[in-house]
């Protein structure tokens, strides 16, 4: 049932992707709006699968890579939809919809069957760690996506390659706001995720740090984000540098958390 929900959500996200891409090509504001509505519908269905997965499995929810990827996609989508209430970033749907689709598609295709719990004695730390880290990753991913669009728009405006396009690509200022807000919230959640991860490790092995590639990469990514947040909110970084840094930092974080697991 949960997997079926995920498959339906993936299908709706895919349609949202296609609609937003068509809107971009046809320069249609209506299609951009339609894509956002579809994304919202997909998010509702996607949201239903989270408690269903939790109810079905003996293993703690989200502790598999694909379930965590699906959860990240869901949180990222919700944050994007929420940001639309405050910031005019409708056009960001052209990047958010594909990201949401890929996250859910991965979960729907490779979600493992529920198995016995392997986290005995660790209490709620696995839940807390995965929830916080995944949500942090989702927000930092959203900052990365906004930054990609910022860099494209910045380049277009600098190159004077500007004609009026009714497709509502967001303004630089709006993208910068999304980047800054998502960075602040995402870094906070990531910090909590790293802290709960250490507590989890200590509960399992008695040591807060096991020295695995995942832990090393995550800590390094956290340090990079700490510097980035310091520069950004200390007023020592322009919007373009902040956008470029957000894209590079997210690339590294994604590799450290997901890529390392895939390679293992």
């Amino acid at each position: 049932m949960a997997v079926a929900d995920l498959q339906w959500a993936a299908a709706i996200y895919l349609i949202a992707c296609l609609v937003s891409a068509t809107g971009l090509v046809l320069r249609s504001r209506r299609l951009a709006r339609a894509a956002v509505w579809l994304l919202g519908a997909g998010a509702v269905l996607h949201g239903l699968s989270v408690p269903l997965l939790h109810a079905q499995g003996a293993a703690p929810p989200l502790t598999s890579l694909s379930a965590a990827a699906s959860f990240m996609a869901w949180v990222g989508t919700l944050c994007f939809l929420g940001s639309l209430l405050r910031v005019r970033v409708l056009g960001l749907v052209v990047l958010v919809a594909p990201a949401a689709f890929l996250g859910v598609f991965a979960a729907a295709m490779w979600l493992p069957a529920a198995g016995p719990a392997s986290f005995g004695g660790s209490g709620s730390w696995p839940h807390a760690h995965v929830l916080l880290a995944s949500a942090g990753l989702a927000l930092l991913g959203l900052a990365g996506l906004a930054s990609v669009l910022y860099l494209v728009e910045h380049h277009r405006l600098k190159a004077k390659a500007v004609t009026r396009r009714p497709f509502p690509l967001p303004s630089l200022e709006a993208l910068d706001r999304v980047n800054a807000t998502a960075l602040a919230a995402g870094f906070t959640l990531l910090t909590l995720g790293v802290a709960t991860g250490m507590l989890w490790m200590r509960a399992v092995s008695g040591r807060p740090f096991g020295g695995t590639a995942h832990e090393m990469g995550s800590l390094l990514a956290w340090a990079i984000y700490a510097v980035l947040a310091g520069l950004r909110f200390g007023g020592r970084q322009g919007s373009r540098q902040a956008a470029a840094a957000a894209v590079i930092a997210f690339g590294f974080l994604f590799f450290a958390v997901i890529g390392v697991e895939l390679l293992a």
Partner: protein
Amino acid sequence: MKILLVGMSHRTAPLAVRERLAVDDPEPQLRKLVTSDEIDEAVLLSTCNRIELVALTRNLDAARMRLQAFFRFELGGGDARPAAADLDAYLYEHTGSDAMRHVLRVASSLDSMVVGEPQILGQTKDAYRAAVDCGACGPILGRLFQHAFATAKRVRTETQVAARPVSVARVAVDLAEQIFENLADKRALLIGAGEMTEAALSALRERGLASVAIANRSPERAEPLAARFGARAHGLSELPRLLAEADVVLTSIAGDVPLLTPGLVSAALAGRKSRPLFVIDIGVPRNADPALDQLDNVYLYDLDDLCAIADLNAAERSRDVAKAEAIVEEQQQRFDGWLAALRAVPTIRHLRERAESLRAEEVERTLAKLPALEAQRAAVDALTRSLVNKILHAPVSRLRREAEREEGIVYLETARVLFALDEGAEVQDGTDGADPTDGT
């Protein structure tokens, strides 16, 4: 019934003539017009670019003379009015389908000086409202104008005619909206003055730009301009501070060397965190050093850049105009069909009245013979009415469809003969303005 349109626009008459005939309050003129025998309905559209009178008439020649007299003697005042002979050269006239098409084109901004400009739709709506308020606009012109508004909406949503700015001022606004999320909390700095910078500033103000500062070599000379925009005038010595506060800089000041240098602007940017600065340089020679464009967060557009975008938009817009014209043509044919279908209204009404009177007669006769049925009168009424409606449904629908075509008159005549509608009844020869979709 014929639709007649007489008017003058920026295409046929110079501004000096148009401004002398412009009408602020059309209602008294319209009231006078529709009380005359020649005009049944009228709408007067008066903007800075056109003065047009759309009228519905049963006597085209008389109405034509009446509207010409209206332009010659009733519009404008006294000596300011152009001589009648001169005026004829500026006037144009459209009748029937051409008049309808013209109204649709005007509302869709296809006949505007700047094609796609949005104001004309609002002005047309105002003209329509004024005519409705004073009782000059009846069901047919009312329907025409509603149809024109729907056409304008289709043109705006299905084409990009209105989306691409083709003036330097509009291009500047458009760029500002691609940089800033909201202009309402932004501050503009106008350096010097010029027609184009003022137009750009006005356009930015229309989009909600919050505040303006004006810097000039001699602040006293900038005072009148500052007063017009509700701004303060400053000397150029205050430029570093004003630049640090500004989000949009519009510059057009005489000078051989660039006024805005990378050093000056970099210093202004230092305290702004990551706030972008949009510089619109309309000065010739340029007021801003092109090296400014290398600075992060500075978006510099000079006159050539703006004109290049405007030209590109104009080229794209001309492609959209063809699409918009096709929409207008389709909508005009639809309205033509509706207008033609009005011919069927008297026949259909007559047919229904005839059938209803026969039905009522037969019911009365039957109930008189069968008093036991009196208790079921309501059921008998409903049954017979339903039968009549079902029998008439097909011929009435067909009549309505056929009436939209030129040769539909044959069907109307045939129906009148077959159902003996002209026997003992006075034939109605015109439309009464009823909607042809009534009475189904």
